């Protein structure tokens, strides 16, 4: 191994605090004549020396005032062998050793950036994806929810949905143009359309999941979770394409939490004041057709016993 690389601090990216050996030697200390100068009051002016011994590297401790650790073991006066991946602790500083031929993997960000810069997806493919998503949504809604078997209203809703998706993708493309100097409108549109398609099924499954609870609060909670989930996925993809943010996942989850939490708080406050003028209670109104024959519900005894328990709580809230 010709050269050895020493990395100080644990910070990645941005500041490369790396030192490279030259002529088979690398000295470390507080003094300015060292190869790697560390500003740490607990380190001697000349602290350690790493040197090549044939094919291997060894460490020499030049000052014993404070202990020097190699992989958390105190180094005595011998000259221990060091290898890439070892950690050296001196004073309050931790150093990591690397070999220059250590393979560096391509990151996912890099792959994405590579792919994004590879070329445009054009406009026809995204549009086809969007139309497909809208058509699936239309058919699903028609088959599961339409009671008058009319297409007009559903079609106009689908067209509105398409317009909103185009606008949304357009806004993110504008954002991308500003932040990354690349709009990627086609990709934004594909991402948006795919998530809208996913949302159709996420919201359906929330409805199915809520059914066994027969509880208004459970239905509401699952609805909000479904909403939160697909908004988070959508924002994650949008951010990934439009920005260079390090943690788009966390940012998307936070944004979605803020949006859905804010909306929930808005409805909660809006409703809390009108509770007494509102003469309709909140209850579980989900009805599902017979899908699983043989599933039994509560008996009359059980149901009315639980209802008695609820009645017992009347007037005990405050």
């Amino acid at each position: 191994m010709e050269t050895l690389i020493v990395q100080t601090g644990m910070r990645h990216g941005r500041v490369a605090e790396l030192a490279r050996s030259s002529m088979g030697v690398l000295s470390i200390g507080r003094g300015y004549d060292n190869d790697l100068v560390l500003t740490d009051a607990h380190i001697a002016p000349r602290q350690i020396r790493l040197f090549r011994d044939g094919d291997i590297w060894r460490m020499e401790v030049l000052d014993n005032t404070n202990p020097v650790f190699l992989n958390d073991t105190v180094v005595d006066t011998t000259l221990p062998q060091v290898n890439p991946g070892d950690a050296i602790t001196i004073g309050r500083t931790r150093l990591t050793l690397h070999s220059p031929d250590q393979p560096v993997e391509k990151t996912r960000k890099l792959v994405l950036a590579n792919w994004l810069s590879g070329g445009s997806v054009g406009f026809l493919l995204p549009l086809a994806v969007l139309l497909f998503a809208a058509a699936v949504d239309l058919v699903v809604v028609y088959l599961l929810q339409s009671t008058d078997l009319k297409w007009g209203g559903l079609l106009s809703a689908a067209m509105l949905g398409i317009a909103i998706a185009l606008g949304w993708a357009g806004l993110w493309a504008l954002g991308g143009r500003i932040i990354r100097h690349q709009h990627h409108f086609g990709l934004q549109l594909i991402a948006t359309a795919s998530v809208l398609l996913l949302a159709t099924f996420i919201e359906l499954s929330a409805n199915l999941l809520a059914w066994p609870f027969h509880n208004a609060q459970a239905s509401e909670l699952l609805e909000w979770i479904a909403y939160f989930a697909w908004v988070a996925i959508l924002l994650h993809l949008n951010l990934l394409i439009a920005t260079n943010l390090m943690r788009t996942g966390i940012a998307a989850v936070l944004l979605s939490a803020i949006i859905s939490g804010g909306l929930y708080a808005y409805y909660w406050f809006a409703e809390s004041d009108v509770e007494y003028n509102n003469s309709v209670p909140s209850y579980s109104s989900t009805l599902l057709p017979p899908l699983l024959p043989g599933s039994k519900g509560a008996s009359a005894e059980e149901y009315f016993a639980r209802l008695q328990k609820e009645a017992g709580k009347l007037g005990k809230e405050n």
Partner: protein
Amino acid sequence: MITHSTVQLIHGPRRLTVWFALVLAGITLATMTYPTTAANRATELFGDNSTMVRQIRVIDLASGDKFSTGSGFIISPEGLMATNYHVVSSYIHEPEKFRLEAILQDDSVETLDLIAVDVVHDLAIVTAGTAVDTYFALSQKPLSKGDRIYSMGNPLDLGQTIIEGTYNGLVENSRYRKILFSGSLNPGMSGGPALNTNGEVIGINVSKGGEQISFLVPVAHLATLLKDARAATDSTDFSTRIAADLMADQQRFYDDVIANMNSERALGELQVPKKLHPSLNCWGHSVDEEDIRYEATHQHCQSEDAIFVSREIYLGSFRYSFEFAETEELNRFQFYKLLESRFMHRPSYVHADEDEITPYRCHDDKLSLASGNWKVSTCMRSFRELGGLLEVSMVMASLDYPDKAAVVKVSSSGISRENAFLLLRSMAEAVAWKR
């Protein structure tokens, strides 16, 4: 002969003319006499009785001015006065905020005390504590449809009036059978007396239904209340009395309703209970238009009665409905989406606030009965000051068939907890599919 006959001829027409004139005069007199005597009777009744009718005012203590007005009339030598419960209800609920006073014909003012209330029949007895010489007699004679009756009171604070109308029997389809008075009562006349031609009280003005349709409380309820008021020693706790009256009244009603629950009639492919109480009013309709892809038959029965308890709370509503729906064109998901839009609690008429009624508590679940599987939602809330009377609403929808379903709804306000559970459970179990 000729002369004689001529005389006769001459006499003949003359006598005819005289007869004709006499008959004409008679008819004219008769047509004139009838309204004259009727008008005279009203004039006489007003003259005889106006001193025994008072305007009753609820005075807002803070502003010292009138908050609401009604009428009242003297019914005993010790000065007891009858009026409506709803005229004095603000004072009953908030005695620290109001007081009661009566305005006499000479504009002098008396302060009133409350003696007795009958919330169910909307009656109250008040007194100024001073003995009187003249007072109304309570009639004990039955009336026949078409009899003239006269109602007195102080409409819209415009001064004392008398109006004339006819007795039209007792209201049908009602739990508290009031007198149907074909005359026009107006706000402010509440609590005033309705008199027969002899000047005896046959009823108490209470409410208005429409053009020339007004209602009177039959005087028998006032006689009972007067007897109770005289027999009672301690009658200051009116809230307890009101709650007890409401409790006893709902008990009588729901005993009958629940006892009737077994009887069955057909609705589509369903067997449902018949009309559960003679006082209910039932309606039906069906939907089978071409562009609606299902057929539905719907029947609902409801009580037309409402007991005034306070400005926010009217009790006594009871309603149930059965709906049978089937479809050939909708798939099962579409059909149950449609049912979801029917699976709704009936909005309540009670718009009371937090200190009068608790928030709703609901229990929703899947229920398996002999008739099959149902989704049931029951919600209830409790009136805080009425001995725990409840407002309840139950909705249930059948879940067993992809193309036909039943939706059952029951709601009641002013029902005891015990009766509520009996009612809901017997209703849930009374609906069945036809064999």
